[in-house]
C-alpha cells in the first residue's frame, strides 16, 4: 500500500474550525481570478498530511491566490496553501492554511466549509511581465509570489484539484476530527501560464513548519466562474478514506 500521512490531529485540534453542521448553502462566485503555483516540497511534508490521505509522489504543494469580485459576503481575496495528496485514489489538496481579506469572508469560510482562514491583506496584481500576489498578516509579509512571463494557453488546459479541510464536527455527544471535501465547479474563460517564483513563504504562518519548498513546477492564472458548493462528502481524518468516507448528500 502507498504511504499514509502522519499528521497527529490532537495537538492541533484547538485551532481547527468547528462546524455546527454540514448544511451550508452554496456560494456562486462569478468572474474569479485564480493564480495557482505548484511546487515540489520536501518529504517531511508527510508529517503535515492527515492519516487518511496518501502523499503525492513526488510530494508537492499548491499556492492559490484568488480574487472574488462578487460573493454573498461581498468582494474578497483569498490565499491558500495546500499540501497535495490522494484521498484513496483521488487527488486532493489538504488546506494547511488560508488568509482572507475581509472578516466576513474569513468567518464564513471557516464556519461553513472549515477553511483554516485568518484575516490578512491579500493582494493580486497584474502586470504585463508578471502577476504578483502578496499576503501580509500582523504586519509581516507571509507570502510573496509571482507568475513570470505570462503567456495565453487554452482554458481547457487548466485543471484544479478539489480541496479537503480538517474540521471538528459534532457527532451526537462526541466531537470528531473530519476531513470535509470542498469540490467547486470551474468554468474557465481565459488562462495564462508562466514560470512560478516564490520570493517568500513563512511556513509557520501557514501551519506548515516542516514544509520545504523545492522544485518549482508551474504557475497559471485563470478567469473563471466558480462556486463553493454544498458539502457532499466527509471523511474520518485518521482512517483510510475507503473505510472512513461518508456521503452527506
Amino acid at each position: 500500500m502507498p504511504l499514509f500521512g502522519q499528521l497527529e490531529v490532537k495537538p492541533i485540534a484547538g485551532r481547527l474550525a468547528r462546524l455546527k453542521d454540514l448544511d451550508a448553502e452554496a456560494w456562486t462566485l462569478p468572474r474569479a481570478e485564480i493564480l495557482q503555483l505548484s511546487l515540489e516540497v520536501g518529504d517531511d511534508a508527510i508529517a503535515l498530511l492527515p492519516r487518511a490521505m496518501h502523499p503525492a509522489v513526488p510530494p508537492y504543494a499548491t499556492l492559490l491566490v484568488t480574487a472574488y469580485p462578487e460573493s454573498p459576503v461581498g468582494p474578497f481575496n483569498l490565499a491558500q496553501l495546500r499540501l497535495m495528496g490522494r484521498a484513496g485514489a483521488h487527488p486532493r489538496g489538504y488546506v494547511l492554511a488560508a488568509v482572507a481579506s475581509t472578516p466576513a469572508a474569513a468567518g464564513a469560510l471557516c464556519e461553513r466549509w472549515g477553511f483554516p482562514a485568518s484575516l490578512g491583506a491579500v493582494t493580486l496584481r497584474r502586470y504585463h511581465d508578471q502577476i504578483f500576489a502578496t499576503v501580509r498578516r500582523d504586519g509581516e509579509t507571509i507570502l510573496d509570489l509571482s507568475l513570470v512571463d505570462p503567456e495565453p494557453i487554452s482554458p481547457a488546459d487548466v485543471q484544479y484539484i478539489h480541496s479537503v479541510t480538517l474540521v471538528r464536527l459534532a457527532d451526537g455527544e462526541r466531537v470528531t476530527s473530519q476531513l470535509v471535501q470542498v469540490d467547486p465547479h470551474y468554468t474557465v474563460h481565459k488562462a495564462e501560464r508562466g514560470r512560478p517564483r516564490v520570493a517568500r513563504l513563512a511556513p509557520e504562518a501557514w501551519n506548515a513548519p516542516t514544509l520545504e519548498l523545492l522544485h518549482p513546477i508551474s504557475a497559471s492564472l485563470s478567469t473563471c466562474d466558480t462556486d463553493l458548493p454544498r458539502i457532499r462528502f466527509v471523511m474520518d481524518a485518521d482512517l483510510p478514506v475507503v473505510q472512513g468516507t461518508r456521503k452527506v448528500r
Partner: protein
Amino acid sequence: MKFGIFYELSVPRPWTRESERIVYDNALAQVKLADELGFDQVWAVEHHFLEEYSHCPAPELFLTACAMTTKRIRVGHGIIVCVPEFNHPIKIAERTAVLDILSGGRLEVGTGRSATWTELAGFNADPDITKKSWDEFVRCLPKMWTSEKFSFEGEFWSMPSRTILPKVYQQPHPPMWVAVTSPGTELDAADRGLGSLRLTFGQFAEQGTRIAEYRRRFPLCTPVGEFVNDQVSTVNFLYCHEDDAVGLKRGRQMANTFNYLASQLTSVREVYPAKSYPSLGLLPQLRRQATGPEASEQAGEGLALGGPERVLRALKRWEAVGVDRVNFLLNTAESIPQDQVLESLRLFAREVMPAFAETKTPVAGGSR
C-alpha cells in the same frame, strides 16, 4: 487473436532487500511458462521513480533475461520513452538491435513519451515538447537500424554521419508500436503506420470507436518504417480459475490494487497546464474503477477475470471490437501467490486459448 503478457513489475511496501528480486524472479518464471504454453509476446514497460507501481526502469535487461530463457515468445520493449533526457536515440537504436540479435529476431518496439510529472521532472524534461521529440525519434529509428551510414540534424538531437552498430536481426526491422492512452494518439499511430498499443483496460464502446477510427485512417498513412504495422493491441488483466466466483474475486482484487497504485501517480495534467497533455489519460478511468460506487461492475467489463467461460466471452468481445492482440497483466504487487498465477496461465492456455484461431501472420519475420 494473439495473447501476450505485460509487466509493470510492481513491488509492494514494505520493501526489503529481497522484495524486488522476488518480483523479478516470479516474472521470469511466468515468462518461461508462458513461452511453453504458446503465448506470443512478453512486454515490459519503462518507468522511473514510480514507487510500488512499477520498478522497471531497465526493461531491455529484463527482456534480455526473458529472451535467454525462452524459445518462441516475442519480447516487447515498450514503451521506450522517446524523450532525449530519458534515452538518447542512438542508444535506443543500439540497445534494441542487441536485444533483437540476442532474442533471435523476436523484438517488438513500443514507443511513447511518458505521462507523469514524477518521471518527466525527474529527468528535467520539458512536458511541452514530448510529442515533438517522440515524432523525431520514431522517424529516425528505422533509418538508424537499416542504413549503413546515418546522419541527422533535428530539433532535439543531431549527429554527424556514423555507422550505428549492430544492425537489427529482423528484416527489414522489428515491428513498431506507439502507446495509446490520450485520445487522438491512435490517429498519430495510424498516420505513421505504427501499431496501436493501447494501455487502457475495459470499455468496449470507447475502445471500439477509437479502433474503428484507427482502421479508417490507416490506409492513408505515411509509414515511418519500411513496412506498416496495422495491429491493435490492448492490455487486460488475467486471472482464470476453475471456480468462476474465486476467479472473479481474486482477479478483481488484483485489478483494484493495480488501479489504486496507478492512481497515486502524479500525471503531467494534474500539475502542469499544457496542450501536449490534454487529458489525464487512463487515470480517471482507473480511479473510478478503483474506488467508485460501481467499482465492481466497471471492473467486470471486458476483463479476463473469472472462470474459463467468462474469460472466453470477454475476449471474444474484444476480438469483435477489432483487437488483434491482448497482453495480460498477471499480478500486481504480488497480491496473487505465484503458484496461483502459474495455474491461471495453464488453465487459460488449456481452456481459452484454443478457441482463438490465428488470424494474422506476424508482421515481421523472425530471421533473415
